[in-house]
């Protein structure tokens, strides 16, 4: 599995497309709790973690439960860790849960890349 993180709008998906030869049909873009792990690439994991916060679900437990399904996936998540502590409890929890999930995934990843302006910094 490969984990790609980075700030919003940094060209993470484009970089993944080029590096791993992904077609549009390979990419699942999260917008809620459901993840289609049959796609090679799962994008916008931060939308999944926000949905988890709203549903009082545990994103790490969810990934643990499907571990064999994403073992060869390209996973992409916005880094939301660098701003001021959010005023809203929902967004504070979102920030925590996104960080917790990224740490869990990075620990299990073969490669962790951070994308900055379309360029890779390899973290693992």
């Amino acid at each position, binding site marked *: 599995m490969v984990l790609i993180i980075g700030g919003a709008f940094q060209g993470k998906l484009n970089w993944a497309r080029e590096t791993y030869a992904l077609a549009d049909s390979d990419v699942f873009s999260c917008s809620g709790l459901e993840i289609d792990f049959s796609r090679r690439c799962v994008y916008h994991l931060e939308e999944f973690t926000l949905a988890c916060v709203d549903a009082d679900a545990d994103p790490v437990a969810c990934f643990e439960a499907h571990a064999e399904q994403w073992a060869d996936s390209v996973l992409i998540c916005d880094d939301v860790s660098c701003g001021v502590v959010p005023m809203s409890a929902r*967004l504070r929890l979102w920030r925590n849960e996104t960080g917790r999930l990224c740490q869990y995934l990075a620990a299990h990843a073969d490669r962790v890349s951070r994308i*900055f302006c379309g360029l890779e*910094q390899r973290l693992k």
Partner: protein
Amino acid sequence: MTIFLSGGAKNGKSSLAQDLAVRLAGDGALYYVATMIPVDEEDRQRIRRHVADRAGMGFETIECGRHIFDVLDSADRNGTFLLDSVTALLMNEMFAGSHIDKQAGERCASDLAAFIRSVNNAVIVSDAIYSDAERYDEITELYRTSLAMADRACAAECDTVIEMVAGQPIIYKGGLPE
């Protein structure tokens, strides 16, 4: 050599950018392209601080809040240009008129790419504002996507791309000048 330099606030971007520009210029012309149009005392104070910081370094200041290519009307293209910052330039381009200009990001991206291609040496400074846990309103989000578009265009065009973290340069592409 052309260099794109970004990162979070107060990580040493301006100071490294000045050093790099001085090194690139050698004995040639050295320009500071000031993009901020001050609107209040805080802005004016910030400008005075930056002017004092670069005093004696040999910069000729060119004030240009919009239409960045106009800088080249009066300057020597073989010189070295320090442009600080893409952030302020886009702010001016996007919010200067009576309505918000949604094309400002694309225009800044192509203007800056053309500018970088047209000059011998440049150091372009921007701000990384993409990693906070916030759901922004439509206008702020438009500004963020537009700045990212301009940043990526600069990064693609420049020889060297640097992210500054706590005064330490992380080099994503190319290298530093001798």
